[in-house]
C-alpha cells in the first residue's frame, strides 16, 4: 500500500474536478472494494476523494418507478419497504450479497463498480490482460471454475462484475444518472454501462474520467413486483454466485405477457437475456417454456475446462427462478 492523500468533498463539482484532472485519484465511498484493491497493490492511488457527504441520497417512488441515490448503503436499500414490496428482486440481490457488515458500509454506486474476483486479476504476481494489458490470461487454461461463459473473449473470461445488484438492475432496465466535472448529467442504461472485454478488458465501463454515478432509476412494471433473485453458491452466505438469475414475469391467465431475465456469475458483464425474454413472452407459464427460455439464454455459451458445469447450472437456476415467480 502506498502513501496517498485524502480529502473529503462537500460538493460534487469539487470531487469530479479532482478526479478528472488526476488520473491516479479515486473516489471513496464505503471503501469495501477500493481498500481491498489498494491493500493488494492492484490499484495505487495518489489521492482519495471521500464522497460520503455528497447529497446523492434517497430511496423514493417516482411517477414511473424508483429512484435510489448512489450514496445509499446496500443494507438500507435492501431493507427498504418500497424496494422489498415493489422490486423484490432488487432487495434480494442486495441482501444475498456479501455480509451484513459489508452491506452496512458499501454504497450502491460502489457496488456497481466492484471488480472481478478472478484469482489472476486479484494477485499481481500473475499476468492479467485486465490489469496489465497484453500480459496474457492464465485463466483461459487455468482455474476458471467460477469465471464467465457468456460475452467472453480470448483476452479475458472474467465476470467483470461478480456481484448481484447489477444483475437485478440489468433485468429491469435500470438507468444510471452520471455527472461529470462540468456538472453535466447524462443517463446510461445499466445494460450499456458495462463493456464487454473484447481486446480491451481493462476498459470495464463507459464512465469518463471524473464522472460519478449519482443515482439509479428503475421503471416499475407488473414484472418488477412479481420478481425474484436466485443465487447459487458454494456456501450459504458470504460467497459470490456460481450462477444467479434475476427474473420478473407478468403472467395473466397462465400466459406470460412480459418477462425480464438477467443472469449473474456467468457473463462477462451482468447478462441481460433478451433471447430468453423472447421465448417467454406470449408463451404459457410452464416448465417447458422456462426450459426453452433457459436454453436460449445459454445458447452462445463458451465454457472452458472448469466452468462447463455453469451451462447447465445457469439454465437450472433460471428455470427455478422462473418457477418461483410463476407460482
Amino acid at each position, binding site marked *: *500500500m*502506498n*502513501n496517498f492523500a485524502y480529502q473529503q468533498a462537500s460538493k460534487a463539482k469539487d470531487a469530479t474536478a479532482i478526479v478528472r484532472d488526476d488520473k491516479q485519484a479515486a473516489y471513496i465511498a464505503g471503501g469495501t472494494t477500493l481498500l481491498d484493491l489498494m491493500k*493488494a*497493490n492492484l490499484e495505487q492511488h495518489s489521492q482519495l476523494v471521500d464522497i460520503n457527504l455528497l447529497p446523492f441520497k434517497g430511496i423514493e417512488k417516482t411517477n414511473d418507478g424508483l429512484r435510489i441515490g448512489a450514496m445509499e448503503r446496500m443494507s438500507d436499500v435492501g431493507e427498504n419497504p418500497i424496494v422489498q414490496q415493489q422490486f423484490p428482486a432488487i432487495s434480494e440481490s442486495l441482501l444475498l450479497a456479501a455480509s451484513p457488515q459489508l452491506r452496512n458500509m458499501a454504497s450502491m454506486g460502489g457496488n456497481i463498480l466492484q471488480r472481478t*474476483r478472478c*484469482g*489472476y486479476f*486479484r*494477485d*499481481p*504476481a*500473475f499476468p492479467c490482460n485486465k490489469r496489465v494489458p497484453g500480459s496474457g490470461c*492464465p485463466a483461459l*487454461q*487455468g*482455474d476458471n*471454475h467460477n469465471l464467465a461463459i457468456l460475452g467472453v473473449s480470448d483476452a479475458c473470461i472474467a465476470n467483470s462484475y461478480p456481484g448481484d445488484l447489477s444483475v437485478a438492475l440489468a433485468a429491469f432496465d435500470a438507468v444510471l444518472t452520471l455527472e461529470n466535472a462540468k456538472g453535466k448529467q447524462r443517463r446510461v442504461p445499466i445494460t450499456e454501462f458495462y463493456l464487454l472485454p473484447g481486446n480491451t478488458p481493462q476498459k470495464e465501463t463507459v464512465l469518463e474520467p471524473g464522472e460519478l454515478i449519482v443515482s439509479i432509476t428503475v421503471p416499475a412494471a407488473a414484472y418488477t413486483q412479481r420478481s425474484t433473485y436466485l443465487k*447459487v453458491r*458454494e*456456501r*450459504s*452466505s*458470504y*460467497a*459470490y454466485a*456460481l450462477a444467479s438469475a434475476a427474473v420478473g414475469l407478468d403472467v395473466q391467465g397462465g400466459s406470460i405477457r412480459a418477462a425480464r431475465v438477467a443472469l449473474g456469475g456467468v457473463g462477462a458483464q451482468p447478462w441481460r437475456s433478451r433471447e430468453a425474454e423472447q421465448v417467454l413472452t406470449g408463451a404459457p407459464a410452464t416448465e417447458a417454456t422456462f426450459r426453452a427460455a433457459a436454453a436460449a439464454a445459454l445458447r452462445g455459451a463458451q465454457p472452458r475446462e*472448469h466452468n462447463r*458445469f455453469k451451462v*447447465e*447450472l445457469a439454465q*437450472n*437456476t433460471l*428455470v*427455478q427462478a422462473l418457477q418461483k415467480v410463476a407460482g
Partner: protein
Amino acid sequence: MDIEPAFFETNPKAGSVGQPLDRVDGRAKVTGQAKYSAEFNNLPGLVHAVLKTSDVAKGRIQSIDTSAAQKEPGVLAILTHQNVPKLAKTPNDPEGKKAIGAPMGFLPLTSDQVHYAGQPVAIIVADTLERAQHAAALVRVQIAAEKPLASYVDPRAELFDPQKVQDGKTDGHTVRGNPKAAFAAAPVQLTHTYTHAINHHNPMEPGATTAHWEAPDRLTVYESTQGVTRTQKALSTMLGLAAEQVRVVTKYLGGGFGCKGSTWPHTVLTVQAARAVGRPVKLSLTRPQMFTSMGHREDQTQTLKVGATKEGKLLALIHEKTSTTSPWDNYAEPNSRIINLLYKCPAFESTYQLARADVMTSTFTRAPGEAPGSFAIECSMDDLAYQVGLDPLQIRLLNYADKDYSTNKPWSSKSLKQCYARGAELFGWSKRNPKAGETRDGRLLVGMGMATASYPVHNNQGTARVRLYADGHALVQTGATDLGTGTYTVMTQVAADALWLAPDKVRFELGDTKLPTAPNSGGSVAAGTVSSSIYMAAQDVWQKLIKLATQDKKSPLYRAKVADVMVENGRMVLKANKAKGEDYATLMKRNETADIEGTGNGKYGAGYESGLAAGPADSGHQDDMAGHSMHSFGAHFCEVKVDPELGTVRVTRWVSVHAAGRILNAKTARSQIIGGSIFGIGSALMERTVRDDQFARYTNASLADYHIPVNADIPDMTVEFIEEHDPYINAMGVKGIGEISMVGVAAAVANAVYHATGKRIRSLPITPDKVLQAKAMQV
C-alpha cells in the same frame, strides 16, 4: 470395569472436573485483555517487519534492488540472502534439519534459490507497519524464472517411494497377511479412487512473531505457536545458543490446527531482523501469506481396494496414496494408519508415492492422516454395505475390530458400539429408507449417512508444577499452550479437584518456556498429558504434606505411616479412622510454611489401574504402552438435502457421539467437537485451495475465495459423549478430543450425498459442479 480411577478416590462427586465450567479466560478474551503474540506492543522501541515474497515458484534470484526502499523514511533494515547474518545451523542439510526439528528442509534467504511461490526473499524493517509495507512494495526482485511443477498430477511429475512418510515417523510400506492373494480371491471386490483438495488451516490469528533481544545472548520471542519448547529448541539450535538463552512465550492462540505445530521461516527471519536492528521486531503474516508460510494439507489421491465375503466380511484392504511434496521433504499424511486398524481385516497393505513439486512443504493439518484416510475407508465401507445389502451401521458391526489388528494388541478401552447405538438413537437412524435416492423433501433429495471416527492417543509426556498456599489458593504452572479450545479452563478444573479447592482459588499459567516443559499442543495430546502432570504434581504436594504431618509432633498424624494416610476434602486423615487428621492449612501455619511445591510428570501409558501413575516418575510405564492400543472412537450421523438441479448440498442434521476417556469439561468439549465437525463439513463441501498448474501459485488465497462454512451452512448439532474409564492411558484417563471430531466427517457427508442421490462422489470438496457432473453420469 469395577476399578475406580484414582482421581475419583481422592475427590468424589463434588468435583469440578467434567462440569461445564465457563472459560476462565473468557472475560480476558472478550474484553481484549488477553495478549496474543502480536500484541506485546509495550516493548521498548518496538518496530515492524514485513516479508517480501517471490512471485514465481521456481528460479534463481538475479538481483534485489533495495535502493528506492532504503531511501524511504523510517526504514531500518532490509535483509536479503546477500546480507542476512549466517546462522549456526540451518535445516538445509539433513543433520541440521534433525537438530532443529524443522518442518521443512529449506530455509529462505540462505541462497539465491527460489523453491516456491510466496517464498520470502527479503524482510523489511521500519518504524511503522505502513512504512515497512510501503518499502517492501519498492523492493525490486529480479528472478530468472524456470517452469515450475505444480503437483503430482502433472504428467512431468516423477513419482517415488519415500520409504518413510511424515518426516520419517511413519513407514511408507506396511503389509499384514497376504493382501494381494486375499483380494484376488475375494468374492466381493471394490476398487475406488478418492481425491482430496489442498486444504489450509486458516486459523483466525495469523502466524506472528515478536522478537526481543534483551542482551546479545538473551532472546525472548512472543510467538504464535502450539509448542513453546519446540520453538525454543529450533531457534536456539539455529542461533547457536543454549536453550535457556531463548525464552518463548505464547499466552494465547487464535487457533492453530497444525500450522503452528512447527517453527517456520518467518519466525527465524524476524529474530534475525531484530538482531540486525537492535530493537524488538514484530511480524504478523498477512492472510495471503498464510497460504504459503505455514504448510497445508497436500493434494492427494488414494486408491483403496476392498476384498470381502458375500456377506460383507472384510478379507483384504489394499491402500495406495499418491501426493505432492516439496523439493526437499518427504511429507505425506499417514492416511493408511486408520485404514489398517478401523476394522477386523486379516490382510492389509499400504504404499505411498510422492512427487516433488515446486511448492511449500505440507504439514499436519486437522487430524493429519486420519481425516483423509477415513474418507476413503468409510466411503468404501458404505459401498460395501450397499453391495452386499446391509445397513451401513450393520456392515460396521459385522467387521467390528475387537482388538487392534494392525498391532495385534487389545484396546486399552473402546466404546464404539455404544457410540453407534446412542448416535443411531439420537439421529433416528432406524427410520432411514435403506434405498438410495428415494427420500425427498419437495424437490430436494434427502440423504442420511454415517461414518466411524477414530484417533490415536499419541505417546507423550509433560511436567507441571503446583504450589499450594496455606491461605487456600494455588499456583499451577506448565509450559503448555491453549489453542483456544479451553486448556486454561480444564486445567484449572483438574488442579482445583486435585487440591480440593474451588476453581477460582486456582491460578493456572501456561505458554512460557520458563515453566515446566509440556508437549506441543497437537495430535490431541495436551488434555491428557497436561492434566495428568498437574494431577501428579498435586499428589506430590499431598505426599509432602503427609510426610510433614507424620513428622510433626503437634499433628494428630504424628508417627503415622505415610501409607496409612489419605487425603479427603483437603484433610489428611488416617485411612482406618478418618476422624483423625487435620487440614493442610492448619498443618502449614503451625509449621510456618507459607506454601509448598510439588512437581509431576504426566505420561502416556502410565495409567491409574496398574498404579504406575502413582509410582516414581520413571517406573515401567512401558508396560501399559506396550500392552495396549490406545484410541478414541466415535460415530457421526448426518442428514443432507441436495438440490439435484443446482447441485447444492446442505447439511441439515448432525449427531456425533464420541468416547474419549474422561471428558474434562462438558461445555468446552462439546464446543470442540462442534468446531472439529464443522472443519470436516468444510473440507467435505467447500474447502479447497487451487494451485495454478502453470504457475504453481494459489489463485484463491483469501478468506473470501477459500470457503469455510458460515453459520448458515451448519445446523444445530447434537454432540454427546459416552462415559469411558480408561485405566491405561494416563493418570487422568483422558484420551483427548482435538482431532477425533473431524475424522469420518467427510465420509458421513459423502455417504449422505450418496444416499440422497444414488451417486457416489469421491472427490473432495463436493461442490455443485461435481454433483451436477455425477448426476449426468450413469452409476
